[in-house]
């Protein structure tokens, strides 16, 4: 019952990714200066853009959670930030490879995009330690949302500060896409962004579906076997949606918390 439309989304993502790689290897022209290595651009830049947008999206979901008190927004915010962190690591790695190939160093401080990307990573990497050091699941969701909102607002501000502090070395791909990027490159880049966005959405949908299925299974097992037979969720068990998880007393099967109760 969960994961509606997952198959269609999976197929679309697969098709888009295949199209992207085909275009990257067979259609997009070779860069005059950088040669073949420039093609990592079609992975690195879309991944980075999707990461930053996803962090802001996580903040929006967190704000919706605080506003509506609906735990599903907290789950979405958590999953979006989780997958964005993975994309962030991927973006840092591809960025370092590209920097090594085109500038000769694994890390270049003169480059605001890469530096602010690292700072954003270091900030969002604290989301999970913060979240899972709070025991009460309801408070955990609330505090994590507050953090996500602050961190989401931090993304553009940080970019402004770092960019003002550094000389420009990084290719300004978007600023020059009119004059600088040939049409074939721009087209490939566009398809690559679509593919990465689809991949991100797909991974998020999978994680949400997996968590919902797991909770439903847990609820069913509790009902069948009694609450003592099912081990309590550990601290590291992502946000609870239907049932209050955490270190519950386990003396009786507690009813699922409804939104109205949580809001009071």
């Amino acid at each position, binding site marked *: 019952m969960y994961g509606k439309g997952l198959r269609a989304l999976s197929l679309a993502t697969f098709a888009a990714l295949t199209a992207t790689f085909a275009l990257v290897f067979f259609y997009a022209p070779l860069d005059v200066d950088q040669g073949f290595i420039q093609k990592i651009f079609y992975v690195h830049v879309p991944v980075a853009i999707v990461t930053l947008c996803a962090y802001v999206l996580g903040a929006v979901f967190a704000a919706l959670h*605080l506003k509506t008190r609906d735990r599903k927004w907290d789950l979405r915010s958590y999953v979006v930030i989780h997958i964005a962190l993975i994309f962030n690591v991927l973006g840092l790695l591809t960025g370092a490879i590209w920097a090594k190939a085109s500038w000769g160093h694994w890390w270049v401080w003169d480059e605001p995009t890469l530096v602010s990307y690292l*700072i*954003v990573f*270091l*900030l969002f990497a*604290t989301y999970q*330690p*913060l979240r899972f*050091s*709070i*025991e*009460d699941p*309801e*408070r955990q969701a*609330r*505090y994590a*949302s*507050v*953090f996500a*909102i*602050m*961190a989401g*607002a*931090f993304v553009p*501000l*940080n970019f*402004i*500060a*770092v960019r*003002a*502090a550094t000389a420009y070395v990084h290719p300004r791909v978007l600023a020059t896409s009119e004059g600088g990027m040939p049409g074939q490159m721009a087209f490939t880049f566009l398809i690559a962004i679509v593919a990465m966005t689809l991949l991100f959405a797909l991974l998020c949908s999978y994680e949400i579906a997996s968590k919902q299925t797991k909770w439903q299974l847990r609820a069913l097992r509790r009902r069948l076997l009694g609450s003592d037979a099912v081990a309590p969720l550990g601290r590291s068990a992502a946000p609870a949606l239907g049932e209050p998880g955490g270190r519950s007393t386990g003396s009786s099967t507690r009813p699922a918390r409804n939104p109205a109760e949580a809001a009071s």
Partner: protein
Amino acid sequence: MRPSVALLRKDLLLERRSPEAIPAMLLFSVITFVLFHFGLGRDEVSGQLAAGVLTVTILFAAILGINRLFVSEQEEGGFDGVLLAPIDRTALFVAKATALFVFLTLVEIVTVTAFAILLLGPSPFPALPGLIIVLGLLNLALAVVGALVSALAIRTRARDLIVPIVALPLLTPALIAAARGTAPLFAAAGAESLPTKWLAVLALYDLVFGLLAYAVFDFLLED
């Protein structure tokens, strides 16, 4: 406004009767200058290096204060008092941020003097007016973000760990702006004028995070 003033008076009185945060921050910053002297192998510093040493020291000293900010509330039931009283909950945020601002200002009076004596190469007096402006804006950033992070971390199991790992990345833009902004003041050839670009970045940071923290603080005090 009055609840904030009352809460602020309580904090300042508490710190005066049993000084805790301020002496710790002071000793920490002076020993950090000594460590920088040996770590950098320099007798005097100037320019960007001096600005970096001063601002990073202040940032790390502030972390000590941020760690302690809500401890009395947590341990002595101050949160319950605020929740039971018929006042706006953000009054606590305003009071705590102001208290942290006052602590930092007091600490910096001594820290900057110690820095000028121990490490700074050029004369500190021409730099003073500009330094007061930059440090004032930096203190505002530290106070606003510090009060929020402190409230965020106080109910966690590992608050001493959570505060630095959350606060340091969050304060990076403020540190960049403050360090770059103070660098011309400490120039070896004599103080240059204050770069308005960095003041604008710091002011923007203060404004955005001040408003955001004010808006979301309510949600940290619900139970």
